[in-house]
Structure formats: structure tokens, C-alpha cells
């Protein structure tokens, strides 16, 4: 039970803020450290200000094949550019774990798919999503058709873009959402 990385208060705080147990938090710390052993100290009791660049995060095996990895890192990082501290790292995997509730996941999913960060998923965001999903294999007309259909289906307040409420209303009913929006680490 003796570990010298965190103070007991820090560990308790992490346990409160995330859905992980002590063991998992320590395991995640070691994964974080393995990305750049020379940058991450083994002693976090004095809360060092260590940030790992996005390139290291994006090369993790759990994330490297995900077309949305850049957006995920940007959403959870403090500076909005994908460079993550340990807190951001734990936060990210906590939301994406299977213990996180549906509403929380829906909130963060909305932020991930909102490419221009204007709190609305507009048509250009949808187009970017489709192109990332199909690796640009659809023709522009097809992409446009898909985006129009999505707005037609999900836009309840008729402003031509999806707000958080529209998105949540739609995604809550999806049968696959919880099982696909899930990363195990």
C-alpha cells in the first residue's frame, strides 16, 4: 500500500473526480509516464506542471486508429491544443470508461463533434465528421445529403444546427451509443 507518487489527499481527490479506483489511477499514471519517462517525474506530491505534447498522446495504441483522436485530446486538454497534463489524461479516460453515465458521455461527445467550438454542431462540423468517418470516400453531393438529413432528423428548434439539447435528445435514444463511445485502458 506504500506508494510515494501521490499524497493520500491527492489520491482521494482523484478517486472523487474520476470513476477509477486507487489501483487504476496508479496504473494510469504509469501509462502516462511511459509515454515520456524523461518528462514525467515519479513524485507528484508537489503538483509539478508537466504537460505532454499531443503527438505523444495521439500515438497511444488506444487512440492511434481513432479518426477523432485530435478532437478528443483538444476537448480534454486545458490549453485546447491537445497537450495534456495528468489531470486531463485521467479525466479523458474516466469519461470514456464504461462507468461514466450516459449524460456525461453525451455532453463530451457533443464537444468532440463540435469542431469549431461554437457550442453548436453546424453543417460544416457535420461535413468534417462524415469525411473523417468515411476517409473522404463520399462525393460532395452525398456528404451534403447526409448532413441535411441529420439536421432534418435531429434539429428540434429549427435553427439549422444542433444545439446540446438537440444532440442529447437524439443520442440518448441510440442503442449503440454507450457501447461504441467507450475506451478501455
Amino acid at each position: 500500500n506504500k506508494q510515494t507518487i501521490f499524497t493520500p489527499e491527492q489520491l482521494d481527490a482523484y478517486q472523487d473526480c474520476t470513476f477509477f479506483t486507487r489501483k487504476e489511477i496508479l496504473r494510469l499514471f504509469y501509462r502516462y509516464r511511459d509515454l515520456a519517462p524523461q518528462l514525467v517525474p515519479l513524485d507528484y506530491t508537489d503538483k509539478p506542471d508537466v504537460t505532454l505534447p499531443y503527438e505523444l498522446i495521439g500515438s497511444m495504441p488506444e487512440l492511434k486508429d481513432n479518426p477523432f483522436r485530435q478532437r478528443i485530446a483538444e476537448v480534454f486538454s486545458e490549453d485546447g491544443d491537445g497537450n495534456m497534463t495528468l489531470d486531463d489524461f485521467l479525466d479523458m479516460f474516466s469519461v470514456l470508461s464504461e462507468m461514466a453515465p450516459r449524460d456525461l458521455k453525451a455532453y463530451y461527445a457533443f464537444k468532440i463533434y463540435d469542431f469549431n467550438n461554437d457550442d453548436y454542431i453546424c453543417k460544416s462540423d457535420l461535413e468534417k465528421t462524415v469525411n473523417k468517418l468515411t476517409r473522404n470516400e463520399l462525393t460532395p453531393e452525398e456528404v451534403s445529403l447526409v448532413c441535411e438529413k441529420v439536421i432534418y432528423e435531429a434539429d428540434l428548434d429549427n435553427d439549422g444546427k444542433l444545439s446540446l439539447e438537440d444532440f442529447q435528445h437524439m443520442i440518448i435514444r441510440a442503442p449503440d451509443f454507450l457501447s461504441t463511445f467507450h475506451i478501455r485502458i
Partner: protein
Amino acid sequence: FQGFAQYSVLFYGYYNNQRTIGWLKFRMPLSYFLVGVGTIGYSFMIVIRTMARNANEEGGGDDTSFNFSWKMFTSWDYLIGNPETADNKFASITTSFKEAIVEEQESRKEENIHLTRFLRVLANFLALCTLAGSGYLIFFVVRRSQKFALEGLENYGWWERNEVNMVMSLLGMFCPTLFDVISSLENYHPRIALRWQLGRIFALFLGNLYTFIIALMDEINLKASYLPLFTIFNIYQGKDLEEEKIVKYNMTIWEASLYNGTIPENSTAPPIHVDPADVPRGPCWETMVGQEFVRLTVSDTMTTYITILIGDFLRAVFVRFFNYCWCWDLEYGFPSYSEFDISGNVLGLIFNQGMIWMGSFYAPCLPAINVFRLHTSMYLQCWAVMCCNVPQERVFKASRSNNFYMAMLLFILFLSTLPAVYTIVSIPPSFDCGPFSGKTRMFEVISETLEHDFPSWFGKVFGYASNPGLILPFILLMVLSIYYLNATSKSYKEANLELKKKLQSVRNR
């Protein structure tokens, strides 16, 4: 399969007719009978249960209100960590989007209803003509072959001898392509077009068979010419379903032969244990039938493999390598790579299963052989598809039509159990071989068991229960309940639709 294998576990003739075997008093004949009946009953139940489950899912999972949104936001699986899986996932997402787009465009298109209807009627008329034409052709050819047979087969060349077989195979090869061409007139959604195609091919095979049987009907009465006919039958190692009915015919003819002539030799049942192959046995028509079925399965397997190799592989090789030195672009025009033929493969599987169901009563190891064949053919076809086929141009999910294929399977199951049931109920088993020998009818094993093994009141109860006066009202009750359930399920579906429409209009307000 003559010789040693004939007397092995594979075939019906191996099991003797002792009532009980060994110290456990294992009732061999009873168990054989019950296993046969039980397998068929179990198959029926499985098929119906699958259909019910599929119907449930289709009704419940039909919520298309967020189709595109869900495709966009929930189709990527965040757990993927492997580049190949990721590639496959990207491809499948793209396909799924394309399919949804096609469906959307279909529903938006405005059609000229009258022209479409006229074309569809015309297409159906053409299909009917083709079916009638093929039926008449078969009738004509069979009559001719009878004429040849009467005059002795040696006078004619190879074509005349195998004429019926060749004609049926050629029809089976070319008519489906013809149906395909006709269906391009109809302009249906690919899923519906596939169903029509399957239905027509099915009708073609059934029609051919029935014409064949009808044309031969007279022969059953003229037992004199039975022998050359039997030789003709033996030559038929051709395609699929024709064989089923031919063998059914075989059985009837064998029964005729039993009545006609050969009194089985006196078979001594020596008290000492002898190798089964040495025991002299009387003629055993069930084993013949079993052998016929096994031969059928094997030849069907060979035909499938050879068709794949020649039809797909050689064609692909030809197109690939001769493209450089040919006048027109082989890959785009004719013949190009072959498309993956969904209807042909599904029908092949279903007919194969029908054969197995028919034959398993007479050759108990047939299902095992078939499992082996299915394994090998799956791998072969997997390779062939990857290497030589191109996907169809219009993308659609064939697996949504699950219930349709299940319905076909059910129909074939019913058809294949008819001959077995017929033989159980009306043809006497062979004198000397098999678990039922010596009895007048196969199902008497049940009445025997009832008499000897169960208490007497059971027999009385059974006697009362099988009284026609009790059975008829029961059947009537079942028919009425089927009608009632059908009516209520229709009304529920309509109510469901109404509610969905209301929901839609409330949201759009």
C-alpha cells in the same frame, strides 16, 4: 459406396431389428424411429422460432427516426486499436452510408406509375412464358428419351443417352440469367428484386421437376420398361433438386420391384457373431436410397466446386490476362469479373439442406458428411470471393430479408419430410435389413412399445385420444385460433404505425 461401406454405420441396413440390445435393453428400433422423427420436429421448431424472433426484431428495431444521425455519431467503435480492423470499419461505415443514401434517393424519386406497372406486368408475363417453355421442353425431351429407351440405348450416341440430364442442367444454368435480364425491366429496389429472382428460380426448379415426374407417370404403370428407366436414373448425376424427386421416384420403383419379383433369399441369422458384411441379406431398398442420397451430396459438392473454379476463377484469370490483347475492354464490358451471386448461393444452401433432411432417415451419417462439406466449401468460397468477385453495384443489406429465406427453408423442410413420412406410413420395410424389418409398417414400432412397455391404461388413453371425433374439433380450434391471432397482430401493427405518425407530426410542429 457399394461394398464395405454399405454395411457400415453410414447406412440404414446396418441396424438390426432386435427389440433390445445389450444389457441396457436399449431399444434400437424405437430409438432409430424416434430420433428420425425428433430431428425433423426439432428442425421445424428451430426454423419457426427463428422466424418469430426475426419478426420481432424487424418490428421493434424499425425506428428510423434518427437513422442518419445515429449512423454518423455512433458508428465508430472507439475500442478499435488495430489498423486492419480500422480499415474494415471505415469501409463498412462507407458502405452503410451509401446504402442509406440510396434508400433515401429511392424514396424521393417520383415515378411514372403507369409505365412502371406496365413494365412489371410485361416482365412477369415474360417470366411465365419462360417457365412454361422450359416445362414443355422437358416434357418433350422426356417423351423422346422414353422412345429411345424402347428402341434400345445402344443405337444412339452420347447426347441422346444423356439428353434429359443435359437439358435439365442447361435450363438450370441459363434460365436464371434470363430472369436476371427480365428483372431489369422491373426497376425494383435490389432487395425486392432479389426476392423476385429467388422466387422465380425456385418456381423454375419445381416446375421442371413436376413436369419431369408427370411425364414419367405412365412409366410406373408399365413396369416392363422399368429397367431402362432405372439405368437412365443412374446416369443423372447432374444438378440439385431434380435429384431429390428422382430418388423419391427411385423408392417407389423399388417398392414396385419388391412386389414384382425378387423373393429375398433365405437369410439365416446365425447365433454366432458374424461380421455384418458376411451375413447374407435380402435386397434392401432403404440402403439403396441412402446410397443414392450420399452419392447425390457428393456429386453436388463436386459440381459446386467445379462451377466456382471454372465460372469464377478461370473467368477472372481470363479477363485479367487477356485484357491487354483484346479488342474491347474486358473489365467493363462482357464478360468482366463475375458479381457475387447472392441468390444462387442461397438457393444452393437451401436445396442442399433439403437433400440432407430427406436423406438422413436412410443414411444416418449424412449430416456428418454434410458438415464436413460445408466447412470446406466455406473456405473455398471465401477465397474465391476475395480473389475473383466484385461486389454488386447497388449496395444493399441482404441480411434484412432474413425472414424470407427462413420461409423458403421452412417450405423445403416440409417438402423433404413428405417422402420420408410417406414411406413410414405406407411402404413396408425391407424383409431383412434395418431396424424395422419384419414389420408391415414402420410406425408399428410405436404401437408395439405401447403394448409391451407402458401400463395398460396408457394404451386405453391413447386409443381414446386418437378417436377422429376428438381430433377434428381440435383441428378446427387450431384453425380458429390462428385466424384470431393473425387478425390481432395486424391490428397491433396498424396501431403502431398510427402512433409513429403522430409522434412525427408532434415533433415537426
